[in-house]
C-alpha cells in the first residue's frame, strides 16, 4: 500500500518551499512593475542569503544546531542581499536604462550580473570557508537545522520559520505600502511614474528602495531555503530561477501580491502534486498496467513549466489579470 496523502513533515517542507518561492516571486514582480527589469539574477541574489548562512555556520555556529542562527541569519541576509540588489540597480541597471537600453538589453545585463555574482560567491565559498569545519561548498547543511517537536511530528526549524517569515514580511510590506507616506508614493509610482513625479515624488528613490526590498526578500528566502537544498552552493540558483519566473508569470508579473500567490502555488504544485502523482503512478498505475516505475518526484520542474503554459494559454495576464468578481458571478449564476 502506497501512501498518497503526504505526511505532515513533508507537507510542512512543501509549505516552507512554497513560502520561499512566494517571497522570491514577489521580489521579482516588484522590480518588474517598478523598473521593467526581468531580473535573471534574482535567484542568485537569493543565494547570497544561503551563503551568509554558510558563513555564519562556518565562523560562529560551527558547534551545532542553534536557534539563534535563525534570527541572526535571515536578518543579516535581509541586509546583505538588499544592499547588493540596491547597488546592482544604482551601479548597473539605472545607468543602462538612462542610456536607453531596451528590455532585452537589460535582461542580458542581469544575465551578466548573474554570472559575475555566481563566480564571486563560488570563489568566496571555496576560499573563505573551512576555518572550523571542512569546506562548506556544495554541502548539505541540514544537520545545523534543529528539530522541533510539534503536534506529534518532528519538524525542522527552517520549515517552521520560513512560512512565519513570509507572512510577517508580507504583512510589514503591506503596512509599509498602505500606511506610510513613502509607501503611498511607491504605489503611485507603480501606477503612473510621470504623474507621481509631477506630484513631487522622488521616483528614483522609490526605484532604489524597491530594488532593496526585492533583494532583501530574496535574501531571507534564500537563507532559509538553504537548509532544504541537497547541496548548498550558488549553482543551485540555476533551477530555482525557473520556479521563481514560473511563480511570477502565474501571478501575472504585474502585481506584487499576486506574485506572492503565484510563487506559493508553483511551490506547492512542484512539491505536493509531483509527490501525489508519483505515489499514484508508481503505487497503482505502473503495477496494474505493467509499466516501468518512473521516479516522477525528480521531475518537479516539469510541473512549474506546465503551470506556466496553462496560465499563459488561459489567462495570459496571469492571476492578476483574471476578473475575479466576474468569475464569481459566472459561477454563482450556474
Amino acid at each position: 500500500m502506497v501512501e498518497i496523502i503526504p505526511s505532515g513533515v513533508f507537507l510542512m517542507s512543501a509549505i516552507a518551499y512554497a513560502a520561499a518561492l512566494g517571497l522570491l516571486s514577489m521580489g521579482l514582480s516588484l522590480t518588474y512593475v517598478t523598473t521593467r527589469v526581468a531580473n535573471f539574477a534574482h535567484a542568485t541574489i537569493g543565494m547570497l542569503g544561503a551563503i551568509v548562512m554558510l558563513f555564519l555556520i562556518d565562523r560562529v555556529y560551527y558547534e551545532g544546531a542553534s536557534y539563534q542562527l535563525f534570527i541572526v541569519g535571515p536578518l543579516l541576509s535581509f541586509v546583505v542581499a538588499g544592499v547588493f540588489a540596491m547597488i546592482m540597480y544604482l551601479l548597473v541597471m539605472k545607468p543602462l536604462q538612462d542610456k536607453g537600453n531596451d528590455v532585452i538589453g537589460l535582461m542580458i545585463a542581469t544575465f551578466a550580473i548573474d554570472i559575475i555574482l555566481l563566480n564571486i560567491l563560488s570563489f568566496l565559498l571555496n576560499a573563505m570557508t573551512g576555518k572550523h569545519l571542512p569546506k562548506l561548498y556544495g554541502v548539505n547543511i541540514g544537520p545545523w537545522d534543529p528539530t522541533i517537536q510539534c503536534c506529534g511530528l518532528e519538524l525542522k526549524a527552517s520549515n517552521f520559520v520560513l512560512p512565519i517569515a513570509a507572512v510577517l514580511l508580507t504583512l510589514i510590506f503591506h503596512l509599509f505600502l498602505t500606511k506610510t507616506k513613502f509607501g503611498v508614493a511607491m504605489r503611485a509610482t507603480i501606477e503612473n511614474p510621470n504623474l507621481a513625479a509631477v506630484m513631487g515624488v522622488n521616483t528614483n528613490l522609490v526605484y532604489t528602495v524597491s530594488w532593496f526590498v526585492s533583494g532583501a526578500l530574496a535574501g531571507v528566502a534564500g537563507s532559509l531555503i538553504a537548509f532544504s537544498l541537497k547541496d548548498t552552493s550558488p549553482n543551485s540558483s540555476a533551477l530555482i530561477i525557473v520556479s521563481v519566473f514560473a511563480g511570477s508569470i502565474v501571478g501575472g508579473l504585474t502585481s506584487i501580491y499576486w506574485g506572492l500567490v503565484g510563487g506559493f502555488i508553483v511551490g506547492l504544485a512542484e512539491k505536493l502534486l509531483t509527490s501525489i502523482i508519483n505515489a499514484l503512478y508508481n503505487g497503482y498505475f505502473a503495477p496494474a498496467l505493467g509499466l516501468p516505475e518512473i521516479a516522477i518526484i525528480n521531475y518537479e520542474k516539469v510541473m512549474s513549466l506546465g503551470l506556466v503554459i496553462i496560465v499563459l494559454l488561459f489567462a495570459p495576464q496571469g492571476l492578476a489579470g483574471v476578473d475575479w468578481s466576474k468569475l464569481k458571478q459566472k459561477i454563482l449564476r450556474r
Partner: protein
Amino acid sequence: MEFLIFSDTWLILLIAYIITTISLNLEAGYTGIPNFGKAVFVFMGAWAAQGIGIRLAAWIVEKQDPALAQEALEFLKNHLGQDYPSLVAAAADTDANRIVANQYIYPFLQDHPMIVAMLFIAIVLIAVGLAAIMGLIASYAALRLREEYLAILLLSFSELMVMVIFRQTESLNGGPKGLWAVKFAADNRVFAIIFGLVVVVLVYLYAEKLAHSPMGRAMRAVRDDEIAAGVYGRDVAGIRLKVIIVSSIIASLAGLVYIEANLAAQSLSFDRVYWTFFPWAFLILGGMANNKGAVLGVIVFMVLRRMIDYGLPQLAAGHSALIQMAAAYLSNILVGIIILLVLYFRPQGILPEKPSKTLDFGEILKQEEA
C-alpha cells in the same frame, strides 16, 4: 595541435559558437524574437549524434555483423556481469556505452566507409528534424507572447529539457554522464573542424542572402513594427514561424559539430551560461542584425577569453593558493563585466546594423529594358 595559445578545442568551440550566433542573429537581431532557450536547440544536434546516433549505429552493427554484436555482448557479460538483450540496449546503457562505442562500434564504422556516409547523412537529418520539432514547439509560444514573457518561457523551457528531463531520464541520453557519440572519421577533431567550417560558410552565405532578400526586409519590418508589417500584408506569424524553425535547425548543426569533436559530453554542458548567454554576449558585442558583426563578435570575444584564460593563471603563478583560485573564477567575472561595459558604451555593438543593400535604381531600369 596547438598554435600560439589557441588549441584545436578552442577552434572547435569558436566554430560552434559562430554557427549558434549567426542563428541567434536571425532570430533576435533581424526578427526581434528574444530566444533565451538557445541551449536546447544546440543540444538537439548533440543528442542526434549521442543518444539517437549511437543506438542507430549499434543497430546497424547488429544487422550487418551479428557475430561482432554477439562477441560484444559476451564481452560485456564477462566483464560487467550484465546481460543485455541486444547491442542497442547495451550501447544506450551508461555502464556499457563506453566499451561498446570504443571497442566495437568505432572499429566497425572505420571498416565500412559507405555505412559511415549514410549514417552521417541520417544523423544530420535527425538533428535537423529534432530541431525543427523543437522550433515548432517554441514558435507556438513565440507567436503569442510579448518579448519578456517569451524570453522567460524559452529560458525555462531549455533549462527544463536539458537540466531536468535529459539529466534525470537515463534512457534518453545517459543521464548526467552523457553517452558517447557516433564517430565519423578516424580523427574526429579534424573531421569536426572541416565539417564545422563547411557549415559556417554555408550558413553565413545563407544568412547574408536572407538578410538582403525581401524576406529579410520583412523580418526587420516585423521586428520594428509588427502592426505596420501586418497592415502592409506581411504574414507576421508565418515569418516568425519560419525564422524560428530555420534558426533552430542551424543551431542544432552547432551542437553536432561540438559533440563530434568531443564525442562524449554531459547533457549538463549544454547549460544556459555557455549556450544561451554566451551567444547573446557575442551578438551584443559584435552588433545585432549584422552577420559580419555576429562573426566578429564571436572571434573578438573568444580571443579575449582565451587570452584571459591563458594569461590569468600565468600572472597568478607563484602567488598564494588563494590568488590562484581567484584567477580561475576571475575569467567568467571578466566576461560578465565586458558585457556590461559593451551594453553601456556601445549598445549597438562593434558593427552596427546597416541599411540593407538594394539594387541600384539605374540597374533596375536596365533590367526592365532588357
